[in-house]
């Protein structure tokens, strides 16, 4: 048995072997999305494929039940279906949560807006409009002239300082899939690098690993 001698090795190989499976990709997307402080790129193609497969299996299960196939088989297929559905739903829910949390920011920042799917963008715009209207009607219109903006504290503010932004300096736990060398400090302060071997776990600032996550070299745990 290969698994008896190498402990970390066999599971890492399993991961590379399974990394082409949609469920594995979905799991990875779900994990990254949960752990990251800001919203990540929407995996449109993956979600579509997952939805198709789920529908297919749902139909198959219905067939099986009608034809009186072995109930054990049916229940196992149902379990697998449930697991995949949970991943998909949780992934979408986590994204919605982040959209709601940083509503105005997501619509203002171009980078963030690019990462939303079509439906998410519609949802975010509607939500932001409703919220802005609600604030205006209940509170803002009753404040003195200079303080009526939803986005700025007062007319004197130069930036939109009433908009909460995601906290990109949060520390996250990550594991790298390859050998990666990263710059620790930006903006010309003594450039230190941290080198990660494959499979190392690190507590690290999100900003540093942000690019590597997008390119798939690092996973958040």
């Amino acid at each position, binding site marked *: 048995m290969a698994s008896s001698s190498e402990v*970390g090795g066999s599971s890492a190989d399993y991961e590379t072997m399974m990394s082409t499976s949609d469920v594995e990709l979905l799991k990875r997307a779900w994990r990254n999305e949960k752990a990251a402080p800001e919203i990540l790129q929407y995996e449109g193609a993956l979600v579509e494929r997952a939805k198709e497969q789920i529908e297919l299996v749902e139909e198959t299960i219905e067939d099986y039940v009608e034809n009186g196939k072995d109930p054990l088989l049916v*229940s196992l297929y149902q*379990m697998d279906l449930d697991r995949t559905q949970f991943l998909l739903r949780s992934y979408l829910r986590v994204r919605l949560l982040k959209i709601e949390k*940083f509503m105005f920011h997501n619509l203002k920042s171009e980078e963030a807006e690019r990462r939303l799917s079509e439906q998410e963008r519609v949802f975010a715009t509607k939500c932001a409009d409703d919220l802005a209207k609600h604030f205006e009607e209940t509170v803002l219109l009753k404040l003195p002239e200079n303080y009526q903006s939803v986005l700025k504290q007062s007319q004197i503010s130069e930036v939109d300082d009433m908009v909460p932004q995601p906290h990109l300096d*949060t520390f996250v736990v990550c594991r790298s899939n390859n050998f990666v060398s990263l710059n620790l400090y930006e903006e010309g302060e003594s450039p230190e690098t941290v080198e990660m071997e494959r499979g190392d776990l*690190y507590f690290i600032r999100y900003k540093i690993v942000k690019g590597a996550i997008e390119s798939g070299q690092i996973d958040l745990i």
Partner: protein
Amino acid sequence: MAGQTDPHISLFSPQEVEFMAEDELVEIVPNMNMEQLNFISGDFGLFIPQIPTKVPLWLAVALKRRGKCSFRPPGWMSVDNLTQILEAERESQSTFQALPFSYVEIARLLFDHAHDDIPDKYMVRSLVEDIRDVRLHKLETNLGSFQGTSAVKISNVSAMEVNIVRPFVRRALEAFYKHDKPEADVGRDTRSSRQQREANNEPRRPLRQR
């Protein structure tokens, strides 16, 4: 942990950590015939009596509960291996021994559902618990010795353990980072890096961790 403002104490609930662990492959010996399973998550089968086969943990537990198979405990769960690991853990104060990333969850599921398939189950169970205690204790003592850095390497820590210490370490490291940054940035930081504001104007405490 004092002063938590997050609605979730930890990023992932223990059930979610277990969910992630349930995709690990384990070996089972089926005692019945079944056709190949073409799941969304992959293809598993054929199931032939007495022929061992690898399946994900969740499937193995489901089959076991219906009495359709028995487990082959993973190689790392032998008494010898665990005793060795326990001694090595006790010896070193700062490094962790290499264990499967989800060893806590795998061991727990096996003990709950397949304890009769584990040779020397009481010994194995007490060894695993001892290993958990030693590692957790090591984590706690090491937490006190953090310096202010931007990256901390934690090797061979398992999924459950990471999840337990994550909230505290995260906020400790953030505090270090914030106080280490040049003074000019601090004023800008507290404003723009504010997370979602609750409607009840909380008094602004500059040293409070966000």
